[in-house]
């Protein structure tokens, strides 16, 4: 397994000097500025492609009918699977979870699953016998720092974009309709949580940055990931080791995080609306118009 590439001593020293003495980041961003965030949806429902600078993540949501867990007969099943393959960076190996991968899937789990963003009771079809199992696969295509924020955004975007097939229940017989028979329906979504990761630098963690890229991540001394939704409800705050940080600084980070999450929310809503408009064929009357293309055959 190739070891992760280490930045040189010159680079580390220079980065710290630029941050602490001159207060500038290498790419000219502000300390609380995110890299350009881009989001595209696939043609299929539930595919979201997010790129945050050079970090690229693809999330795909899918659903199938299965048997619910025995101890939770009224709930559906919801899993998030993250995969860091050598495509993202050569030191990742398939099926051998590194620390980064374990932490990433734990954070996504706590943020999206445990906070109840997706209503699992709405996934139940027949109590104790059939339910929907929704699965989100997160593929990291390119790793240039801040996988957590980008992955969480991709997961939320994919789930909100996804449509599950419509079902109906008559006389104990469950019918699942194909997309051609009936329009698929969106998932039961309660709130949209997003992750905001702060990185700290300096002997006492006095300099705080948002959205560290790969080089900045190698040099940081501590990091905290705050997950919350736009109403200010915090799902989790994770600071896993690192240099201790002043409590007041942490509170300031949380309030800035709220502003960023509101921006993310508006951005995502805008993109979803744009996508819905693109797909909207105008309804029945639009299909009957005389100006439409002729169908041959």
């Amino acid at each position, binding site marked *: 397994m190739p070891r992760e590439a280490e930045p040189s001593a*010159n680079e580390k020293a220079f980065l710290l000097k630029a941050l602490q003495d001159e207060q500038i980041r290498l790419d000219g961003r502000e300390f609380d500025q995110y890299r350009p965030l881009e989001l595209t949806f696939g043609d299929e429902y539930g595919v979201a492609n997010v790129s945050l600078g050079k970090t690229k993540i693809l999330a795909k949501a899918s659903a199938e009918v299965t048997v619910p867990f025995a101890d939770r007969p009224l709930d559906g099943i919801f899993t998030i699977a993250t995969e860091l393959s050598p495509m993202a960076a050569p030191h990742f190996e398939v099926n051998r979870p590194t620390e980064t991968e374990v932490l990433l899937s734990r954070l996504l789990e706590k943020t999206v699953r445990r906070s109840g963003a997706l209503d699992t009771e709405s996934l139940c079809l027949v109590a104790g016998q059939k339910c929907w199992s929704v699965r989100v696969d997160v593929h990291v295509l390119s790793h240039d720092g801040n996988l957590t924020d980008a992955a969480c955004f991709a997961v939320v975007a994919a789930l909100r974009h996804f449509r599950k097939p419509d079902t109906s229940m008559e006389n104990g017989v469950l019918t699942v309709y194909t997309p051609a028979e009936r329009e698929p329906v969106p998932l039961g979504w309660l709130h949209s949580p997003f992750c905001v990761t702060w990185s700290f630098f300096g002997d006492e963690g006095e300099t705080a940055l948002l959205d560290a890229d790969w080089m900045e991540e190698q040099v940081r001394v501590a990091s905290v990931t705050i997950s919350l939704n736009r109403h200010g409800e915090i799902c989790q705050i994770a600071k896993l080791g690192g240099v201790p940080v002043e409590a007041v600084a942490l509170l300031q980070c949380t309030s800035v995080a709220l502003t960023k999450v509101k921006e993310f929310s508006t951005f995502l809503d805008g993109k979803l609306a744009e996508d819905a408009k693109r797909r909207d064929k105008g309804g029945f009357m639009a299909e009957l118009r005389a100006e439409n293309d002729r169908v041959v055959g």
Partner: protein
Amino acid sequence: MSTESPLVVLPGEAIDPSLIPTHKKKPLRLGPGLRHIPPSEIVPTVAGQLVVDHRKTSMWIEYNGGRYIPSQGDLIIGQIARSATDFYYVSLSPYTPNATLPHLAFESATKKTRPQLASGDLVYARVSLANRHMDPELECVNSSTGKSDGLGPLKDGMVFDVSLGFARRLLMAKSREEGKVEVLEALGEEGLAFETAVGRNGKVWVGSESVKAVVVVGRALRETDERGLGVEAQRKLVKKLVREMR
């Protein structure tokens, strides 16, 4: 001298025989990217622009590859991985086998006066031995004259990653005309004081008294490389960045 219209070739494509320079006495020399299949076939092995030089009767292919393959005489910037008994292990690019740099391959170095380099330090070195079957070897001194010619450890400053093709253009003797790279000259004209070392393995070291100058140079290089800017666009970019800095 390059032909006026750039001819792009793909691997395995046949080359028009009229393009091959012939000379009564000088033999045809093939550069990187071309392979001679006896008796008379010349086949490209990479995709790129075919360049023909009639004065030197040579031809080669300009291509922008992803992975650096060491070749003899190249100047590179390496990172010391660790120190062994007689030499340092130097990494030229991540996830490739390390090159070796003898402890005494520095200007006027003896066992007592040699530079003590730690893991993570950067060196500007020349590739003294490179072939497919062996790990590459480096030197920081010109073995015939004993002078360092600017090679050796690089102190402070910052190193930036660039693409291999861009590094080659920066290293060309006439980078303004042939390589169409004017970024560094333009930055100097704007009044920034800095020094650079370009490694053929896709790394550019920039050193200066002022941290801001280094950051501006780095950003200019990165933007020029990533967006493939022409000479005019490079000048505009430099003006914009210097203005932002002030």
